[in-house]
């Protein structure tokens, strides 16, 4: 073989030498390039994805896989605390996922959690859950959670009440939804509805515990209503005489009340004439 090699251009030995040389050089260059820090934008591109409806065309029937991928990506992306403005497209990204796969339930819940607790933007959280309900009308969990966010974080009891109402109406919703609804109604000052609902709960309750809870709440609602009435009368009294009444019966005598209301246990309400505070004689959940 050796006698041919000179005629084929380069000798094998020379080529192997070049081979080792270039290998050494590019390994060195690799080390050099590794040492140069390059700016990376973690997950920078996906927020520019157009709406999911159009993306669906581009997935050729694999839209649920795409939804999975974006969901997975989103989880990573939102746990990256170095990206300051990462919540900018939160709603958009989760709307893409829902467009790609309506029935994928986890992203709605997680999206809402991220929005509520991380981004502290309850409107986005409620938006995401609204979308969940819109696409999945049979899932009580979305309005249920939305009710929680509205009641506990947003303190918007009117809104919470609407969500709980929606929850109640969905088949399979837990009975607590109705109680939460009644409570939210109470907190949003709709005593009539709250009373009505608690009464229904009381009458249909199957075990003693629930009955007790309902009865306590009925007590609370009645107390609330009564205190409200008393306070109204007191306000008019103060308007006329310039000071708080010395005791509650005086309100009846002055004609501001037809009769002095009593609580559910036929006890009198407690009145502090110096501060003008009216309290129920018993704390409702200690009855």
């Amino acid at each position, binding site marked *: 073989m050796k006698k*041919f090699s000179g*005629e*084929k251009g380069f000798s094998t030995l020379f080529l192997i030498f070049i081979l080792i040389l270039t290998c050494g050089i590019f390994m060195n260059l690799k080390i050099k390039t590794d040492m140069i820090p390059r700016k990376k934008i973690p997950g920078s591109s996906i927020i520019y994805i157009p709406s999911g409806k159009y993306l669906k065309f581009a997935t050729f029937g694999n839209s649920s896989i795409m939804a999975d991928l974006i969901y997975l990506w989103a989880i990573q992306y939102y746990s990256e605390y170095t990206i300051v403005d990462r919540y900018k497209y939160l709603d958009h990204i989760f709307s893409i996922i829902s467009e790609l796969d309506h029935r994928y339930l986890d992203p709605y819940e997680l999206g809402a959690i991220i929005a509520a607790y991380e981004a502290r933007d309850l409107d986005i959280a409620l938006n995401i859950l609204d979308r969940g309900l819109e696409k999945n009308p049979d899932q009580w969990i979305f309005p249920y959670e939305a009710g929680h966010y509205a009641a506990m974080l947003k303190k918007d009891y009117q809104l919470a009440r609407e969500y709980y109402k929606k929850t109640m109406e969905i088949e399979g919703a837990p009975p607590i939804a109705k109680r939460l609804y009644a409570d939210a109604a109470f907190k949003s000052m709709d005593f009539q509805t709250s009373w009505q609902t608690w009464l229904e709960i009381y009458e249909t309750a199957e075990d003693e515990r629930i009955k007790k809870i309902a009865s306590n709440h009925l007590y609370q609602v009645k107390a609330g209503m009564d205190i409200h009435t008393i306070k109204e009368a007191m306000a008019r009294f103060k308007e006329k005489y310039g000071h708080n009444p010395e005791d509650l019966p005086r309100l009846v005598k002055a004609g501001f009340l037809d009769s002095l209301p009593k609580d559910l246990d036929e006890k009198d309400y407690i009145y502090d004439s110096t501060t003008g505070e009216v309290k129920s004689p018993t704390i409702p959940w200690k009855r």
Partner: protein
Amino acid sequence: MTTVLTIKDLHKSFNIGFIPKKRKILKGISLSVEQGEIFGYLGPNGAGKTTTIKCILGLILPQKGKIEIFGNPHLALKAKEKIGFLPENPYFYDHLTASEFLDFYSQLYVMDKNKKEEKIKNLLQLVGLEQSAGLQLRKFSRGMMQRIGLAQALLNDPSLVFLDEPLGGLDPVGRKEIRDIIARLKEEGKTVFLCSHILQDIEMICDRVAIIVNGKIINQGALQDLISEKTHFTEVVFSGVDPREFESLAERLSDQSGRTLLKVFEEENVQKVLELIQSKKGKLHSLIPRTETLEDLFMEVVKQK
């Protein structure tokens, strides 16, 4: 006469199959080709003809052996500049037109630009393709492919041309034309190394032949030598002499209308027969030495193997 191609003890084996199995293709080929001759390389399919040519051209690297072209090692560019090659069933870059194709190959030689265009035109004319110069090779018929192949083999005005089955797949007219071109090459002083398993081709035009069977050269030499060596018997036809007189010298084949046909085996017996006829005042009608044809020779050699 100078030797243009020398092959000495050429060996080549291939590893064939998924689990490599050594198969010997060439088992020690030695031959030499003289300048100006048409050398026929003859053998049945699979004997190693094409492998030999590929070894010479550097397409296959032999395990053992020495090949020299014009005194240079065969892989030297100096050697390659003086040779031309037409492969078996040629197939070329079919995206090119005939003239583009020749132009491309001419760039691989050191060639004057002005001379190049004229050369291409002449070659296309030589092989009868001047009408198809602008046609893409993919539209060529098999015969046309063979012709353009011959044209590219002659691009560099080679002193030594290797033709692998140049007449394969051609119609009788085509065969004659290619044969004429080969004869013309010889007239121009070129050496032609012609590879074929078709005997008539070689018989008609070759000066010298080598016969390869199973990777070994069985016989080689000038065509006349190979064949006349093997003169088996002579047929003698005469009249006017009693045939029984020749019984000791020859075999009597027939007696028809007073003429006798004898089959004489030995050379000196032919002489004796002639003398006898002369002395008996008989009349000699014909004397034909029956030599073997190349085909007989070939068949015999192959059968022996």
